[in-house]
């Protein structure tokens, strides 16, 4: 079969499935919808101060867009004393200390204080700070958001201490803190990395340089790590992005270990609504309290699946409003989760009624496991978008549903935490 750029039949066929009208973009409307970002941008350019991104905190996204650069003499300013850590006492010549030796030494660390900075031109701003101790982590983002990970579950809270993320521990699959805080770039399972020797051996430090992993090479230039020559512990990791500056991760072993209660997450507020729901796909109204602007949540529970993982239906998520490809992509993701978590799993469709009586759009792609809270979900207006409400105001409804068993057949308890994000107040 000859195929080249003149194969008109094929061109026409592809055009038929892809070609669409030009999308329209209204910048003024976009600015209205992104006031927060516009304000940050204007602050940055008028005050020339470091202001941090309006994105929600996401360690993986931050790190995957980064690279590591050349170590400068700045490494010398870092003085760390190591408490409770055995200094490396092996007889290996420093030049022959493989990265794998550093990784093994790191696995012996009980506690560490981590600082994550991002450079902005000539400035360096803190992006988050974290404390690790004996398999637990507390992570403090710049906007006051907090993450607590106890080795089994990771709970994320926004700046108002509202639970917005609940997911398996970030230490799943045996991740070390080093792997975690470098976004998986420094996996201890990478034998190619583990055999690499330092590129520089100084009086006090060893320097390791790594290329970006192939999957990240579009974004990352390389990785440079300063390691204490005696302790064989990483002190500083520097990651340079191809198109911007660098991220700097510092490991401080000096700070005293935080007390146990420091690693305990805040008390989770009671749900804003709760109701028994039948597994019949019919609408059930949940009265909402303590969430200004929201009067009711209306849910439909259906599509229970408890079969073999390899037969998990690829059309589990179905909607007349959503493109089949998108539904299939979501179903595929759910199949992977199902394989890990097992069943049963349920589908829950959710929409809301505001105090004004406006009905929101429906979120139809929520899958729920019993006694498990979803991550934060969201819906906008019934007509689409977060600013297309009948009164023209901006409303983005955020919510986290959870499902518990009831003592009746095919009956479950749905609990709903929810609130409205507006541009007012």
């Amino acid at each position, binding site marked *: 079969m000859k*195929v080249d750029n003149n194969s008109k039949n094929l061109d026409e066929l592809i055009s038929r499935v892809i070609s669409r009208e030009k999308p329209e973009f209204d910048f003024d409307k976009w600015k209205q919808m992104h006031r927060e970002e516009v304000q940050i941008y204007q602050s940055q350019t008028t005050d020339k101060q470091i202001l941090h991104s309006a994105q929600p905190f996401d360690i993986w996204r931050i790190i995957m867009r980064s690279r590591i650069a050349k170590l400068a003499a700045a490494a010398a300013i870092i003085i760390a004393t190591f408490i409770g850590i055995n200094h490396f006492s092996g007889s290996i010549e420093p030049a022959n200390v493989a990265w794998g030796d550093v990784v093994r030494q790191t696995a012996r660390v009980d506690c560490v204080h981590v600082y994550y900075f991002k450079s902005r031109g000539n400035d360096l701003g803190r992006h988050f700070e974290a404390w690790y101790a004996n398999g637990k982590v507390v992570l403090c983002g710049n906007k006051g958001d907090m993450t607590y990970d106890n080795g089994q579950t990771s709970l994320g809270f926004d700046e108002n201490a509202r639970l917005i993320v609940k997911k398996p521990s970030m230490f799943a699959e045996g991740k070390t803190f080093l792997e975690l805080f470098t976004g998986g770039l420094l996996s201890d399972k990478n034998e190619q990395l583990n055999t690499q020797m330092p590129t520089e051996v100084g009086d006090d430090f060893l320097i390791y340089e790594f290329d970006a992993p192939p999957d990240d090479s579009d974004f990352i230039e390389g990785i440079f790590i300063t390691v204490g020559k005696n302790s064989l512990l990483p002190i500083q990791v520097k990651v340079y992005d191809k198109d911007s500056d660098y991220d700097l991760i510092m490991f401080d072993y000096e700070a005293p270990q935080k007390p146990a209660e420091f690693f305990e997450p805040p008390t989770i507020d009671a749900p804003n609504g709760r109701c028994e729901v039948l597994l019949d796909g019919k609408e059930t109204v949940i009265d909402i309290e303590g969430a200004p602007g929201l009067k009711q949540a209306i849910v439909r529970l259906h599509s229970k699946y408890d079969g073999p993982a390899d037969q998990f239906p690829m059309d589990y998520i179905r909607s007349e409003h959503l493109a089949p490809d998108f539904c299939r992509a979501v179903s595929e993701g759910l199949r992977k989760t199902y394989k890990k978590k097992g069943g049963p799993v349920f589908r829950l469709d959710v929409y809301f009624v505001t105090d004004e009586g406006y009905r929101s759009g429906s979120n139809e792609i929520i899958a729920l496991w019993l006694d498990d809270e979803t991550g934060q979900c969201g819906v906008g207006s019934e007509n689409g978008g977060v600013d297309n409400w009948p009164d023209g105001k901006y409303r983005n409804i955020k919510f986290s549903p959870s499902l518990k068993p009831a003592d009746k057949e095919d009956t479950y308890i749905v609990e709903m935490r929810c609130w409205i994000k507006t541009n007012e107040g």
Partner: protein
Amino acid sequence: MHVQNKPEIKLVEAAIAGDIDSFGKLCQQYYTAMVAIGYSVLGDLQFAEDAAQESFARALVNLRNLRRKTKFAPWLASICRNVAKDMVARNTRQIGDKDISQITGSSNRDDNIQMVWRAVERLPASAKEMIILRYYNGLSYEQIGSVLGISKATINGRLTRAKLKIAKYLKRNGFPENRL
């Protein structure tokens, strides 16, 4: 290698210096391409538009990080890819869904057309992105080169290889050869 033209660099410089209207012009210029990139990841035009607009928001607050002004479009494209991948990963929706386009659900689509779509969908991510950039709204080689930061010759080679993969898939799945 595509070289960003001078007027565009001036827009980028002005945007970095605080001229939001210049940023708006850049958004207008690259909106279609960003929607195409989002679409190649998400397979849904409405979500793709959301991804494009969200990537503008992230670009705006991180504009000062852009060190190579000649690489604005590839930088924006990488942000857009990440946003779209995040959207798939999050499994959550921030918008209503009554206006979602049904690009793959058209009732008049016959089996053969669906097979073509499946062939496109099964391409490796970079090849799929290239195909959609080219065929979605007929972006020119120059426009694609600007967004991906690659030469016309490279685009041509990648397109040819992607189309060959599509044709092979179609043939393997019994697509009428006289229609290829």
